[in-house]
């Protein structure tokens, strides 16, 4: 629950909302934040932050081990902080891909044009990868921007995969199942998202991982004390200035998950 920032009370938590629940102003702020970060070529910019996950070397992301959820929570937290440095109050939204209906990239990310201009959430620029590193992974010409081929490489994960994950009794069981359909969604989106070296350059990567982070939060709420193994609690999440233990409380990181937020007009009479 949010708290008021006035007086001695703690500052308000920021709400991460469902993509489809963003107001026009919130969506506009999200687009402005990505656009601003695209234009920065130092370590505050999109290329630097997206490159932490994959290329350029070192590829720092953690997959297929118990650091998967903590590492990506730290990653999203620091990316969101960088976004807020550009546009005050902006938050990452989550892609609610089990909401029902046919699987699809959210409109906010799928529309090529917005108000007559290119939608910055439809494609991200791929920059900052040394040519010799790209050549070694033998993927043909390096793309200038990200691309997607939704549904061409895999069917979408089933809702039962989510139910199974949320019912998992332990952290290791949960992370196994949630990473399973996480991998499936990456492959379903296809194109740039389908492989680690460039996946984070696609703007929808951040909405996908926000959903994964939210699911971990929901699972945590239902499983108090369901922490990662004690043996990794003090592990540094390179290159971030955080340990696994630092990621366990999203409220300590200043955010929570909501479906939407409607600000009420009016005043004291």
């Amino acid at each position, binding site marked *: 629950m949010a708290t008021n920032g006035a007086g001695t009370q703690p500052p308000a938590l920021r709400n991460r909302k469902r993509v489809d629940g963003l107001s026009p102003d919130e969506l506009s702020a999200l687009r402005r934040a990505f656009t601003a970060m695209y234009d920065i070529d130092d370590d505050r910019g999109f290329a630097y932050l997206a490159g932490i996950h*994959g*290329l*350029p*070397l070192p*590829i720092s992301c*953690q*997959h*297929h*081990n118990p650091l998967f959820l903590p590492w990506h929570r730290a990653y999203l937290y620091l990316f969101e902080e960088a976004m807020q440095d550009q546009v005050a109050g902006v938050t990452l939204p989550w892609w609610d891909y089990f909401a029902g209906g046919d699987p699809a990239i959210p409109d906010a990310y799928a529309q090529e044009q917005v108000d007559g201009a290119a939608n910055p959430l439809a494609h991200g620029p791929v920059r900052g990868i040394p040519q010799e*590193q*790209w050549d*070694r*992974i*033998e*993927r*043909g010409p390096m793309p200038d921007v990200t691309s997607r081929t939704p549904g061409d*490489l*895999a069917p979408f994960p089933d809702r039962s995969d989510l139910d*199974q994950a949320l019912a998992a009794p332990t952290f290791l069981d949960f992370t*196994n199942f949630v990473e*399973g359909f*996480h*991998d*499936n969604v*990456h*492959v379903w989106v*296809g194109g740039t998202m*389908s*492989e*680690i*070296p*460039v*996946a984070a350059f696609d703007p929808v990567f951040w909405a996908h991982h926000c959903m994964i982070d939210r699911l971990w939060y929901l699972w945590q709420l239902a499983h108090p004390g369901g922490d990662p193994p004690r043996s990794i609690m003090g*592990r*540094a999440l*390179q290159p971030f200035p955080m340990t696994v233990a630092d990621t366990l409380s999203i409220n300590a990181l200043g955010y929570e998950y909501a479906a939407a937020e409607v600000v009420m007009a009016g005043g004291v009479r």
Partner: protein
Amino acid sequence: MSARFLSAPLPLGGVSRGFRRADLVFHGLDHSGPSYEVRIFFNRPDADANTPRTAGDGYVRSFYMFGHGGCAGQPGHCDVPETRRPFDLRPPHQLTPATRWVTVTDAARRAVEGGELRVTLVPVVTSPAGAKDEDVDVMALRQVSLVTYD
């Protein structure tokens, strides 16, 4: 087509019929290369990438491995050390082979009732690099187990 895994017939005599959950556990999955799908078939030793993904054809389910995408470093950069020195406090190598499990309870019950289980795993590379990976053992599995929970 990438190299398949075909199990020998699993001895099911010691598996009670009343289990509430059954997992297939995959030990030592490689994730250093392209992303790939693994299609699981029960009692369908001839299954391949062209076999329909229907229960009638022995298909159980799939899982996906999000691949590291190959080595962008110089030779040896992505080699996973076989041993660790006692005072090597660095994190484990990022490409340490993975363990993944998938739940196959209903299919396992049917197999136990039938008294026989052979598992066929058909990997299908899902990345643009797949075409050049023909016949490569992308999974590099060390072991597959059926684990049941009463």
